[in-house]
């Protein structure tokens, strides 16, 4: 299996632990990948303040066109925002030939053309449908010993198209956690928004969103929360001290990426492969005591 | 016929395990002298049925008593031909499934059921179908030549029968002639009315006789034997028909009553009907000055869903307004349509047309009109916008269209008055009294039936002819007469076509059934009919007045003149007659009386009370069976006797029961009133009324009136059965045993 891995702008910075832990996981599972040549940003969720809709579509279509011209492999986007931006462009271009013509006439300015031939996949989709939980389970050498994990799904990994999982009751994240030997704690707010891209400018409102999510996970017994989106990881983790100060809570919940847990379960080094030391709220103790 | 009787007891389904079947067979043989009495472990199976058939063939058995499951099941299995009498005794659902096995009381219950069954079989005669002297017609009269009438006539002809169509206007088509376009399946776009083709199809059809500019003057006779007098164009004609479809349609609600919405005050406020006529005639313009129309506002529910006007929804007005909005857009794509609504009622697939109207850019405002006014030659409407949360003003309107509702043609403008019967309250100085909506004298003239109970179909609510809408929506309270289209309920064209087709089919069914002497409904296939022993008639008129279907006419001396083909075989007349002169071959006053007398009543000191429950066969008996299927346990002291309708309960049965020492009588039947369930419309209500007279008699005899009780039981009330029985048993325990026991 070969894919284009499109990690996007945040996985080199604030989401570095995601990228670092993703690579050894893919290696263990035999996933081959390649970078999209000279890829550009996807525009994420806040570009509408600066650009009209067509410009944002063209921005994403450039990546798709380059991928199509260089092998056409499925694009795997670990970041949910990047994933949904590209999937959306794909859908709309495929359904509306007028729009496709407009996009291509803009792409032509850079000598590119997109014919709608590339598929965009989420990391969870590839792990669950292409690789399968059975293979993942096979590769586990250090089962996570019933570690209680809140599998936070967020918004943009499944909504709105629900291509690989249900939009109202998703299961892929939980099944993978279970394959690793962890216990996926059911908590209803796992589908709730964390505030996404407008967290920084709208901190006061978004604090409440995060508080609800963390409280819900803890009430249902989660020891830590796993996520598949750098935006969610940052919003849930980094602002906890500020939330505690503003709302009088005492959160200290480690937020890890699913791939970090996978790297640990596959027997990888906690630092080198799972990048656990990148996490600001340290998860090592909880994870190590679960490993036994 | 000379009866040769046999009794077969099935021991399957737990019956053999719970009862002493041998003792039952003894009773049949010894007490009722029945020559052949057998038991079988699986009577409804092919072998069991073979046993019976063998006896029929070899022993000449013609009266078969089957003591097994409920008569509501396996009636097809135990069908041995129209020339055999089959009596079913319920030992399963109502005995072994509701009582503990092997107990003495269970055995006594089973024995009494068998005794009653044997007694009933003894009193049953084979019905002979009613064959009138006149020949039965299978032609169908259709009154009204609108979409419903035309469709009914056409479908009748397509099915191979003849139709007579009478239309009062000079051209066929009804309201369809006023319409520009239709909105119908698949609700994506406007469709053509199809009027021309439809009228041509009817006029060209050799099996349809069309009278235009004509009305029905009067109809005499009965289903299969109707004689119709048609007047028109200065001529008079008589047709003989078998059944009638009334499709006389609707009129729009009188908008003159809607002056608060501006009608009559401003010329540019019109009704949806006037709007349609304008569109059909050519261009839609402002009525006041003939100028072009740019901004239109539709007021939905104008005088509908309003207790001061029409309390009900006419179901089509939302779609009609959307249709007319499309006309406006067709005329001028720049025009703006506002639709001011309470709810958008575009049901089912019609939602697609709502979506189209939205896509066209029509503006939907949810709210109610506060004020309609004029300013600078244009109209404005002020309304409370519910979704915006404030009062708004929509100005610069060229046209305001009031979406008014439908009123059935049967609804009279004024409530008619008839000479008051003796002793009636509320008569005026001239001795006239207002009729109630369910009277045959209420509706406006359409049929002119020569029925003692009135010339038109009885209505229930809002002037619509009534039928038992849950079970029999196409029917009316007159056998052989069916309503179709908007006269029975406001409906859109797609449904009208369905409705008319159904009514035509029912009408044909009626003529076919009547021609072989069968009842039409709900006792479909019943060959019996009430026979009157006129020698003892005292002309009290109870039967003619109380028949729910107007089946009995009267002569000048008040003698009843029965019309068997109008009859639904409910037996209400039988229950009403104080002289007990009415009977059916297989259902009579003495028959039930003998069944009651067949019950063994223990002595007072045995402390085993006995209750007789007269159970209506439609809902209450079914509810009992369902309680049995669910193994709900009840008191073993109740003896259930199915009757056709509680209306057929003759008060002499209560006297019989009490004089034999029965401690209590329970009447279980359908709900009555505005929301009635009674399958014969008035039966259970009449039973209840008659019971009030019984309580007076009981009190005089120093018997507690609590001993006789009426209970409403619907088919879905089976869970309540144990409680109902328990409560009644408690009452009987309180009043104590019947002092007439052992006399």
């Amino acid at each position, binding site marked *: 299996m070969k894919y284009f891995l499109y990690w996007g702008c945040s996985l080199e910075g604030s989401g570095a632990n995601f990228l670092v832990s993703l690579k050894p996981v893919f290696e263990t599972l035999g996933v081959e990948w390649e970078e999209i040549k000279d890829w550009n940003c996807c525009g994420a969720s806040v570009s509408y303040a600066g650009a009209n809709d067509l410009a944002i579509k*063209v921005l994403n279509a450039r990546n798709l066109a380059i991928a199509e011209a260089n092998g056409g492999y499925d694009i795997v986007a670990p970041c949910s925002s990047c994933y949904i931006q590209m999937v959306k462009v794909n859908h709309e271009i495929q359904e509306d030939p007028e729009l496709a013509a407009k996009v291509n006439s803009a792409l032509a300015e850079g000598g590119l053309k997109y014919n709608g031939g590339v598929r965009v996949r989420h990391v969870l989709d590839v792990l669950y449908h292409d690789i399968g939980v059975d293979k993942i389970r096979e590769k586990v050498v250090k089962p996570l010993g019933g570690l209680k994990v809140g599998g936070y799904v967020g918004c*943009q990994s499944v909504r709105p198209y629900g291509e690989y999982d249900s939009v109202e009751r998703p299961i892929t994240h939980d099944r993978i956690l279970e394959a690793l030997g962890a216990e996926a704690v059911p908590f209803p707010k796992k589908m709730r928004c964390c505030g996404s891209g407008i967290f920084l400018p709208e901190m006061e409102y978004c604090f409440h969103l995060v508080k609800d999510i963390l409280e819900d996970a803890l009430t249902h017994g989660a020891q830590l929360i796993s996520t598949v989106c750098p935006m969610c990881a940052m919003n849930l983790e980094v602002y906890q001290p500020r939330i505690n100060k503003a709302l009088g809570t005492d959160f200290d919940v480690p937020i890890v990426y699913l791939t970090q847990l996978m790297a640990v379960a596959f027997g990888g080094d906690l630092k080198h492969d799972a990048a656990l030391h990148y996490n600001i709220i340290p998860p090592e103790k909880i994870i190590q005591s679960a490993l036994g | 016929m000379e009866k040769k009787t046999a009794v077969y007891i099935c021991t399957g389904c737990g019956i053999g395990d719970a009862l002493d079947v041998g003792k039952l067979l003894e009773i049949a043989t010894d007490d009722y002298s029945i020559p052949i009495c057998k038991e079988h472990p699986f009577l409804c199976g092919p072998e069991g049925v073979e046993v019976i058939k063998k006896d029929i063939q070899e022993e000449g058995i013609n009266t078969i008593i089957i003591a097994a499951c409920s008569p509501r099941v396996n009636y097809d299995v135990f069908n041995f031909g129209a020339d055999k009498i089959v009596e079913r005794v319920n030992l399963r659902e109502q005995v072994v499934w509701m009582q503990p096995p092997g107990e003495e009381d269970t055995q006594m219950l089973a024995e009494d059921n068998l005794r009653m069954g044997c007694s009933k079989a003894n009193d049953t005669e084979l019905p002979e179908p009613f064959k009138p002297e006149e020949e039965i017609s299978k032609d169908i009269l259709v009154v009204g030549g609108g979409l419903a009438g035309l469709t009914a006539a056409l479908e009748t002809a397509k099915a191979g029968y003849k139709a007579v169509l009478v239309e009062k206007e000079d051209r066929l088509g009804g309201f369809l002639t006023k319409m520009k376009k239709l909105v119908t399946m698949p609700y994506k776009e406007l469709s053509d009315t199809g009027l021309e083709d439809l009228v041509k199809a009817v006029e060209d059809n050799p099996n349809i006789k069309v009278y235009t500019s004509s009305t029905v003057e009067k109809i005499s006779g009965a289903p299969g034997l109707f004689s119709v007098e048609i007047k028109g164009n200065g001529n008079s004609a008589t047709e003989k028909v078998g059944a009638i479809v009334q499709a006389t349609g609707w009129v729009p609600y009188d908008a003159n009553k809607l002056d608060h919405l501006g009608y009559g005050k401003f010329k540019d406020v019109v009704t949806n009907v006037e709007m349609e006529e304008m569109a059909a005639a050519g261009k839609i313009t402002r009525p006041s000055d003939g100028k072009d129309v740019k901004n239109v506002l539709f007021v939905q529910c104008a005088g509908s869903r309003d207790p001061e006007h029409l309390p009900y929804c006419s179901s089509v007005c939302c779609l009609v307004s959307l249709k007319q909005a499309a006309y406006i857009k067709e005329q001028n794509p720049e025009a703006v349509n506002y639709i001011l609504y309470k709810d958008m009622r575009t049901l089912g697939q019609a939602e697609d047309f709502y979506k189209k109207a939205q896509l066209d850019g029509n503006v939907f405002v949810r709210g109610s009109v506060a004020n309609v006014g004029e300013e600078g030659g244009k109209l404005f409407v002020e309304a409370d916008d519910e979704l915006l949360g404030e009062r708004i003003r929509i100005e610069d309107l060229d046209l305001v269209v009031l979406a008014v509702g439908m009123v059935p043609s049967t609804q009279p403008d004024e409530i008619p008055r008839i000479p008051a019967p003796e002793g009636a309250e509320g008569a005026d100085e001239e001795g006239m009294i207002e009729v109630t909506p369910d009277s045959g004298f209420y509706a406006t003239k359409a049929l002119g039936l020569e029925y003692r109970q009135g010339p038109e179909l009885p209505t229930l609510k809002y002037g619509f002819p009534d039928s038992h809408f849950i079970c029999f929506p196409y029917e009316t309270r007159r056998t052989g007469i069916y309503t179709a289209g908007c006269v029975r309920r406001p409906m859109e064209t797609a449904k009208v076509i369905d409705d008319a087709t159904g009514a035509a089919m029912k009408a044909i069914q009626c003529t076919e059934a009547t021609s072989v002497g069968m009842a039409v409904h709900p006792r479909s296939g019943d060959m019996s009919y009430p026979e009157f022993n006129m020698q003892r008639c005292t002309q009290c008129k109870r039967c003619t007045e109380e028949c729910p279907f107007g089946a009995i006419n009267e002569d000048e001396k008040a003698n009843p003149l029965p019309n068997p083909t109008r009859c639904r075989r409910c037996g209400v007349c039988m229950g009403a007659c104080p002289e007990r002169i009415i009977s059916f071959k297989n259902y009579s006053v003495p028959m039930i009386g003998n069944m009651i007398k067949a019950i063994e009543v223990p002595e007072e000191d045995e402390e085993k009370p006995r209750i007789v429950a007269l159970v209506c066969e439609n809902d209450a008996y079914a509810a009992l069976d369902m309680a049995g299927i669910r193994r709900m346990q009840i008191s073993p002291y109740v003896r259930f006797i199915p009757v056709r309708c509680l209306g057929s309960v003759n008060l002499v049965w209560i006297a019989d029961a009490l004089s034999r020492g029965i401690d209590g009588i329970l009447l279980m039947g359908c709900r009555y009133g505005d929301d009635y369930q009674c399958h014969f419309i008035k039966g259970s209500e009449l039973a209840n009324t008659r019971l009030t007279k019984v309580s007076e008699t009981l009190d005089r005899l120093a018997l507690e009136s609590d001993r006789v009780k009426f209970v409403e039981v619907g088919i879905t009330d089976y869970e309540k059965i144990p409680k109902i029985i328990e409560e009644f048993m408690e009452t009987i325990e309180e009043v104590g045993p019947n002092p007439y026991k052992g006399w």
Partner: protein
Amino acid sequence: MASYDPSFAREVFENVDYGEEIKMCMQCGVCAASCPLSMRMDYSPRKIFVMIRAGKREEVLNSNAIMLCTSCYSCKVRCPRGIPVIDVMHGLANYAIRQGYTPRKKTAVFGQEFWKQIYRLGRIDEKDLSRRYFFADGFTQGIRNSLEMADMGITMFLHKRMKLLPERPIKGIKDLRKMLDKAAQMGKGGGGAI
């Protein structure tokens, strides 16, 4: 009393990205009920749509609702008419900003700086973006903002979650800019990047 004015609705249909979708709204309110921030909005998404239809131009373009959308897609998934509510809200925000309205100035500035970075480099430089956002209101305010958030920045840096070196423009940046300019021109209602 408000006068119903259909001209703003027409303006929205013609000039706002996905604006014509609101024709299909039947005002069921599921979007408002699903939206995580609807309680903080002055008008819920449903209300915004009926206000557009009624012609309340100033209220809509000044509302904070159009800027508070987190793009969670809950509304789009549940709308019985299939309206992409989030895209309409984004379109309205873009239109409002172009027309000179500044609801929720900080959020608008953040989004604009985000896009400017993309236009400049083809990718986002997280620390540079934060810096530009903090200093959008001038130097003094910028220092104040930076000091307030300094602890977070330092923590991220110490945990290797911040790229040290500045981001360089992608190789095809000139072509990208040409493409984006063309797209801006062709955009709905004469588009135009800001």
